């Protein structure tokens, strides 16, 4: 049994190179850090959790003005553990924005954005914006009064941009007013466009971190 397993592992490792992965991803040298250095990983964990609970929510959620709110009530009241899945997704969303933001503050305070990590920082800005975008698009999906008016106000603010404002507002709403089209495009953005962008950028962010290694915590000499 054991010999067979080792043979299988050896065969796969020779072709895939688990051991190289292990060395490069997990066994890389780390400077002396502290708990603030864990916030990026915490952001990653929250992202994965949001993806999983989000996929589960799409099993029952229906993005149409007639059924959106009812389908949410169904998830909360009738689906087993629906309250738990939605609860995690709901609170995880706020927590993720918070954690990503504090992660950014820590890289700012420790001046980790300097050479050679400028690009890590720039990608990070994209990550923060998309994370906020996820929150904004997700907020509309229950299609209750709070969601409806928050999005009315939010898109109106985006519409106050000089010159382009009107175009931005119409592009966000899919027309001059909030409608079924708004709900549908927010849904598409929330479950496909933004998460794919976010996932891709996180991959790039992590690639850069592994390439450069983590910056050391500044001391008196810096």
């Amino acid at each position, binding site marked *: 049994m054991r010999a067979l397993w080792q043979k299988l592992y050896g065969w796969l490792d020779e072709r895939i190179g688990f051991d190289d992965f292990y060395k490069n991803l997990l066994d890389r040298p780390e400077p002396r850090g502290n708990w603030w250095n864990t916030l990026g990983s915490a952001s990653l964990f929250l992202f994965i959790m949001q993806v999983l609970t989000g996929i*589960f929510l799409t099993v029952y959620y229906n993005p149409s003005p007639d059924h959106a709110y009812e389908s949410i009530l169904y998830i909360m009241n009738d*689906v*087993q*553990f629906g309250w738990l899945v939605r609860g995690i997704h709901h609170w995880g969303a706020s927590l993720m924005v918070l954690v990503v933001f504090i992660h950014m503050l820590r890289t700012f305070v420790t001046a980790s954005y300097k050479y050679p990590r400028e690009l890590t920082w720039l990608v990070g800005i994209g990550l923060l914006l998309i994370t906020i975008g996820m929150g904004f698009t997700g907020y509309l999906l229950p299609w209750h009064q709070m969601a409806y008016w928050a999005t009315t106000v939010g898109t109106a603010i985006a519409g106050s941009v000089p010159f382009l404002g009107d175009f931005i507002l119409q592009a966000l709403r899919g027309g001059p007013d909030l409608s079924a089209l708004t709900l549908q495009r927010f849904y598409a953005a929330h479950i496909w466009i933004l998460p794919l962008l976010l996932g891709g950028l996180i991959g790039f962010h992590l690639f850069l971190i592994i390439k450069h290694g983590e910056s050391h915590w500044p001391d008196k000499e810096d």
Partner: protein
Amino acid sequence: MSGSNHISRRDFMKLTTGAIGGFIAAVIGIPSIAYLISPALREDKAGKPVSVANLENVPVGKPYPFSFTVTRVNGWERTSTAYGGFILRRSADPADVLVLSSRCTHLSCRVNWNDEAAGFVCPCHDAMFDIEGKVLYGPPPEPLGHFEHEIDGEGNVIITPVEIKEG
């Protein structure tokens, strides 16, 4: 304490890692699976009894048609389905009543009573049932189903809206 039930540190670590890992897997796995299969676990409750006719209006010896709708809630949607049947008074005795379903046992078309032929005719594949629902000819594999019924003090025929198949 002798060495007989001594556990090495390594084995202890393996055991606790396995136990905690299994616990976490269960805590995540069970709700996940329950969540996904939740609608399949719902039991299909029989609807409330419905009053479909009053015996006063039902002639003896001739099937009397009735229909009713059952509304089912599936998640966030309500679907109303119409069902129908026939009340047959076999004699003047108010207890001698049969409530047949009009759903053809072949592929679920609605059968109609035909006076001349003295049978229930299915419009779909040329089949006929006799007045008590037995197959006379055609593809249906079994007799028409029936509904359980009760007759209250005022002569209302009250049925339980679940079709019961004949043996």
